[in-house]
């Protein structure tokens, strides 16, 4: 049926007769190759459990604390708080203060990842800096097509001190939002601990 029309104008159809069609085909091939490579690499090298950092290091403590929070074991996560911080913040307060993290769906969504940036000594212990990265997207609707997607990131820091043979948090660690009894600047009467490194 279209034979006559093709004779009218040869530069017309979606076949590979035109430069634009050839470009489109080349782009499609490149996209397929890129997608196949990317997905293969992702499944082969970016899947499964992450290797845990050495236990007894500040970074290892931060990683285990975050994993515990992600698994929903708030009781075990609470144990990573120093005794002083636990005095100011009961388990119930700790539980309540991380509830936002579960309610926003971050724990379950899989759209969150955390990267270690640096570890540096501070007055009484160490500060571990991490970058929290979230992938976000909007739910599609007829009036708001699903084009809004991307990534946002921000830095967080964890302050730890050595207590016995383990590193514990002395400031409320993310995703703890608040602790009513806790004061940012600790009173001078607070016992000092050395942090052998």
């Amino acid at each position: 049926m279209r034979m006559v029309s093709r004779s009218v104008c040869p530069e017309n159809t979606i076949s590979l007769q035109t430069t634009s069609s050839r470009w489109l085909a080349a782009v499609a091939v490149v996209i397929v190759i890129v997608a196949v490579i990317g997905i293969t690499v992702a499944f082969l090298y970016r899947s499964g459990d992450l290797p845990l950092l050495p236990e007894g290091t500040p970074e290892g403590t931060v990683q285990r604390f975050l994993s515990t929070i992600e698994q929903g074991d708030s009781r075990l996560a609470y144990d990573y708080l120093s005794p002083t911080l636990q005095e100011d913040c009961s388990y119930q307060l700790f539980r309540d203060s991380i509830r936002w993290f579960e309610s926003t769906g971050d724990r379950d969504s899989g759209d969150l990842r955390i990267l270690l940036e640096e570890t540096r000594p501070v007055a009484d212990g160490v500060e571990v800096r991490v970058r929290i990265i979230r992938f976000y997207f909007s739910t599609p609707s007829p009036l708001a097509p699903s084009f809004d997607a991307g990534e946002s990131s921000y830095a967080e820091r964890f302050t730890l001190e050595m207590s016995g043979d383990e590193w514990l948090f002395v400031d409320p660690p993310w995703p703890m939002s608040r602790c009513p009894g806790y004061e940012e600047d600790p009173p001078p009467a607070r016992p000092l601990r050395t942090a052998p490194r």
Partner: protein
Amino acid sequence: MGLFVSLVPLLVIGGIIWAVVALVRRHSGGEGEPGIGTLRRLYYYGLSFVGLMFSASGAVMLVDYVADSFDGGQILSRGQGQLAFALAITIVGTPIWLFHWWLAHKAVRRFPSETRALGRKVYLYLVLAVSGALGAFGLISLLRWLLGADNFNGLHLALPLVWGGVWGFHWYVGRQEVPRTDVGESVHRVYVYVASLSGLVMLLAGLGIVMRQLIGQVYDAIFDVQVLLPGRVTLWNDTSQGALAVFLVGGMFWWWHWHRVSRSDQDSTLRQVYLHLFAILGGAATVAATLSILLFGLLQWAFGEGDTAGVAEQFRFLPAALAALISGGALWGYHWAVVRQESATGVAGSLAARQVYRYLLAALGLATLAAGLVILFGIVIGVIAPQSGQELLRSDWWRNPIAYAATLLLVGVPLWGFYWSGVQRDTGAGLLERTDLTRRIFIYLVLGAAVLAALGNLSALLFMFLRDLLEGELSAQLVQDAKWSIGALLTAGAVSVYYWLVLGEDRRAAPALEKPSTEVPPVRKAVIALATEAARPLVRRLEAEFGVALSQWHWADPDAGVPTLADDELRATRQRIVEAPGDRVLLIIDASGVRVVPYREG
């Protein structure tokens, strides 16, 4: 200075009045017909409108007051403020409306052409719109009460009674005033199609909620969901009762305006806009969005990070999504069938509207596809490029994003592919012009958006590179940080190159297409071909020759035959169509040749 500032609102109001007067003068045709004059007309109908609004609002409050007394419920304490206020505005408003309406009526009796004045039409249809909206709202509240979703309130009776009465009276007056002018007909159409659309939206919203409730019950039964508060999840609850009321009133509103009033209005451009740009496009967008939701849920469950609470929670969106899919599909399917049925009668405006619709859907598909590509490129760069910091949580962060990208691509590619390839095919076949304004607008908009996106992301990329370079922190981490910008740049680059090439091809092909049109004037008529099925190839040749799509009526007699036409005979047929009187032509195609029969409807 202060005096000047205080005069600004007055100047604005004066400017608006002047613009309205100029518009009315230009369109009412009153210059050639005797009448009461634009300013006096504005005064009559403006005061009529204000008086009517006061009067009707007072009447609503009065009926509400009286109806509350008949309720039988014990009224513990009620002041007389409502009654006093209702009486006051009714007593003031009713005479104002009656007097000015009587003046307008007297003017109509003196000058019959007054019935065609734009000012009168605007008044009539503005009152119809306001009273129709408030009457429908009142009717919904009445039905909600009757169905048990609400307690009795006098307003349940007052609103539909009073505003329904106002609507009925003005509808009757408007219907009596024939023949109408083009301008009056336009005002009428605006009202009819806005009312049809409002009714349709209410109908579909009500239907969607009722369906969601129904499917939700089935879903809960299948997944054995533990119900803690049965009152809120039973089928016959406040939500379904309210939705049923909205469905019934919306359905009635839509049926009246769409099926009864606009049934014979097939030549209207506004009807085509309503059909293609609101009903069909709205239905298509609803279906596409709902399919995206369904697909993403499925892909997320299959290889993403689904809801850890289980399958029932993961697919909790199913009842709402299926309800939206059914509503959107019904909206799309029904109106598409209407368009096909009407295009068979050769409505001239439907072709242009259908082109706009195709380009809009192609744009929607392209935007979805491009968003999917940006995310895909970003993920691929994210998993391949080295990361400077140790990952503490989530090595498989890419699972949900890839499910999202796959969803967008699976929806966007077929949508854009189907409509764009259709447009390209018809353009190549000569059924659409390469220089068509809609096509050029579409291509330049896509090209402009793609080039701007490419430039914006190139700037972002350059900024990140220079920042890291100047701060001495340039590393492979830059690729990770800039992965979304790189993805957007690659996508925008690919799209802009493609449409630049298409534009070039259009430019090169245009002279070849325009050449015959300089010799023979273009066919700008609705053409119907009455021919047998065997003549379809000939009809396509005629379409290619004329540069317009033909509607084909199938000749049931297979013996009618098909003529053999040479190219010069095709051109001669074209010339006869161009020279035929009117804007509609019927081609009778049989073995003896092609007969050109100009006709008109009515």
